[in-house]
């Protein structure tokens, strides 16, 4: 009995880092690397490497992977103009159903979403542990 408990404890310890690190699954083929669609760098400090299904632009979801290839967040980019028109965005996909924290931040615009908008970021890992600097 003690042996079984020890084996289970060992297996649990070995798998804990995987649970803590967040999902690593890469997006399906419908998602394209954002840097291959618009004039943005491969890696965006603070966010990571972004993938998006072009048919979902501008809102997304954008799937963000850190330097270790971990899916760290799902980002929705909501134009202010749509907010002012009270546009509804419903049934949006998410990269993971594990959400640790949410950030809502203003962005003045960038290639791909060239108007003022908000980033709604669902963090799938603790943001402090995400290697996105």
């Amino acid at each position, binding site marked *: 009995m003690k042996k079984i408990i020890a084996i289970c404890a060992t297996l649990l310890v070995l798998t804990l880092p995987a649970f803590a690190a967040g999902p690593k699954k890469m997006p399906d083929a419908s998602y394209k690397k954002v840097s291959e669609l618009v004039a943005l760098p491969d890696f965006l400090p603070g966010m990571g490497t972004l993938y998006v299904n072009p048919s979902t632009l501008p809102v997304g979801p954008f799937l963000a992977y850190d330097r270790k290839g971990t899916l760290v967040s799902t980002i929705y980019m909501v134009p202010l103009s749509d907010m002012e028109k009270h546009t509804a965005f419903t049934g949006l996909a998410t990269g993971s159903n594990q959400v640790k924290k949410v950030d809502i931040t203003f*962005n*003045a*615009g*960038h290639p791909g979403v*060239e108007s*003022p908008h908000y980033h709604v970021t669902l963090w799938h890992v603790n943001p402090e542990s995400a290697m996105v600097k």
Partner: protein
Amino acid sequence: MAGGLWLASLTLGRFCLSAEDEDVVEISMRSTEDGSIVTFDPIGLLVRPGQRIRWVNDGNNVHTATAYHPKNDNHALRIPAAAVPWDSGYLVNPGDSFEVRLTVEGIYDYYCIPHEMSGMVGRIIVSTSRDYNQASLKPYPDSPGVEEWSPLPDAALRNFPPIPAILERGRIGGSNR
């Protein structure tokens, strides 16, 4: 060259200092790290005809320096009619830069493509005189006046520094207005 505009090639990285570089006026393309605040700095500039002007990306964002001209996606004409328009294209990396030499006297309004709607615009006055009443310094109307030309976003119109202020001070910072 027609219009008196000499267009330098797009350059990447930092320049090495040379006697020619001493004659260049730099305009920084600035952004906070989170992309919430963007500006050209200086946002208003008075230069002499023939002055070289170089826009440099500070690296926190992606920018362009694009003249208000119908050739640039049907934007309104807000540079001297005899001047040749420019568009830097997207400057992506820290230190990416773009240079022009403006020789036709007058007011040159320009914008950043991804940030025009957030008010990232700038104004350069090319003049040998600080006399506000000269014909070449007649202000542009807010409304484009031509149906095919895109109207300027309100944020852009609000952000142009006043012509008298540029003539008086010579340089207006984008971060301290």
